[in-house]
């Protein structure tokens, strides 16, 4: 077990330049694909935010959300969480395909397969930064001003990155064993979005048994969403959510260990699994 973790970590650390180059040129190739290029990296999430805002903010007439004595207009509150989803969601869907989409490379050259999840996440991270810039502008216009607590975002971003890599590590190998994994993941994405308290406040579950709330809070994605919102609006600090934090790291580490073991076990067998 430790051998596999060491192997995966070593491969990733020694190939940082490779990861960076692959992510960079994938991103570039994506942009070259369309006439407007970079514009879509911004426009796509913006249009989605408008969709959800229209559906929930206007049609369902959701009121401002109050937590820890701070009231935030629904649109800002939602965007504070959605920005995480726009990062995690493509990481999960593309991460699942990370190894398979590079089949022509791994069958033709000696290639450290375990760096592929990291390349996918790094590529999405660029989009995430673009989005954060827009978000800051919107917040400034909306009267939410920067604060020292905003730096906490870097911690939560790191959490999101590690979680995304760990999950992709597992799903990408499973996807090589059976392509059904990706279909399953794609089908579950919408479910995951609504199961995670991003578009709705977790306090709306009050009428349910307490255990439901606990399960919701154990959701690693929610931990990051909550963290981002805390940095933006509530300023409670990282240690305030220690229970979620423990749950998050336990889940992430389990995923990472499992993913690494699988990666290690199948590192030379991928070619026979196509």
């Amino acid at each position: 077990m430790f051998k596999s973790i060491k192997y995966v970590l070593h491969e990733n650390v020694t190939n940082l330049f490779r990861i960076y180059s692959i992510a960079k040129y994938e991103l570039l190739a994506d942009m070259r694909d369309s006439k407007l290029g970079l514009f879509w990296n911004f426009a796509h999430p913006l249009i989605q935010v408008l969709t959800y805002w229209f559906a929930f903010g206007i049609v369902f007439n959701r009121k401002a959300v109050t937590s820890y004595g701070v009231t935030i207009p629904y649109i800002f509150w939602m965007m504070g969480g959605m920005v995480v989803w726009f990062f995690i969601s493509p990481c999960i869907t593309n991460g699942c395909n990370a190894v398979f989409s590079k089949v022509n490379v791994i069958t033709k050259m000696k290639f450290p397969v375990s760096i592929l999840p990291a390349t996918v996440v790094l590529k999405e991270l660029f989009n995430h930064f673009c989005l954060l810039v827009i978000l800051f502008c919107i917040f400034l216009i909306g009267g939410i001003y920067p604060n020292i607590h905003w730096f906490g975002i870097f911690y939560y971003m790191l959490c999101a990155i590690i979680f995304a890599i760990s999950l992709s590590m597992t799903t990408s190998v499973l996807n090589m064993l059976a392509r059904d994994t990706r279909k399953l993941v794609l089908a579950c994405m919408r479910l995951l979005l609504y199961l995670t308290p991003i578009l709705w406040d977790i306090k709306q579950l009050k009428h349910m048994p307490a255990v439901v709330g606990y399960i919701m809070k154990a959701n690693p994605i929610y931990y990051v969403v909550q963290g981002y919102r805390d940095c933006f609006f509530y300023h409670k600090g990282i240690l305030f959510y220690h229970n979620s934090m423990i749950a998050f790291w336990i889940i992430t580490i389990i995923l990472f260990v499992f993913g690494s073991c699988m990666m290690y076990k199948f590192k030379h067998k991928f070619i026979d699994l196509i």
Partner: protein
Amino acid sequence: MEKEYAIEFRHVSKIYSLKSKNKEHAINKRFYALKDINFKIPKGEVVGILGTNGSGKSTMSIILAGISEVDEGEMIVNGEQALIAINTGLNPQLTGLENIELKGALLGLSKKRIKEITEGVIEFAEIGDFLYQPVKKYSSGMKSRLGFSINLCLDPDILIVDEALSVGDKGFAQKCINKMKELKATGKTIVFISHSLPQVRGFCDTAMWIEGGMLKEYGNIEEVCDHYAEYVDYYNALDNKAKKKERDEKFNKRIIPNVKKKGFFDRIFG
């Protein structure tokens, strides 16, 4: 003594599983892509691998390159080996220059090394003004030259060339062979997999003939090439029925029947 060999195969076999005709999942046939292969390739030798379609040449190349693992036996390699994969890793949307960087990075070269090789690659590939054009606009020969020259910059000890020269025109092939002759002069071991007898005769020192997943002959270039040419002529002269019989015979030797198939979860935890 050990050190003098670049590659040594000891009873190497590679097994693929075949889907059974009726949809009974429990029983699956298994198939020897390579069966009990033994040989030693001395350092600095240029070996041509010959064989008809489906005899296991490509499997051999990925095993030699260390991409795929052997199922039985063992392979001992002294030195770093690399497979020449011409069109792999080129992204059609990116320009020639970007592709040099991308493919260089994919092959694991450092940033500094990529800078060093760029000049040479551009020259060898003869892309000239096309350097800043997306690769999708390249002619296929140009693409191959680009891919090939990046690959050569990897500077491995053992070079595996699998049908790589069959893509370009004669000029390209000659250019590549000249380049490889340069490499040969520096003492590199080259494994050259090809259908083209003249190319093998012209370039290799020794030849290996694989037929039906088994090593048929390994030795002097002229002898093996002659025998191989004889066999091809003999095979082509057969009528269809005899050809089929010959194929079936070969196929049956490679099959291992009735092996229980491993399920999804067996593979994860087994």
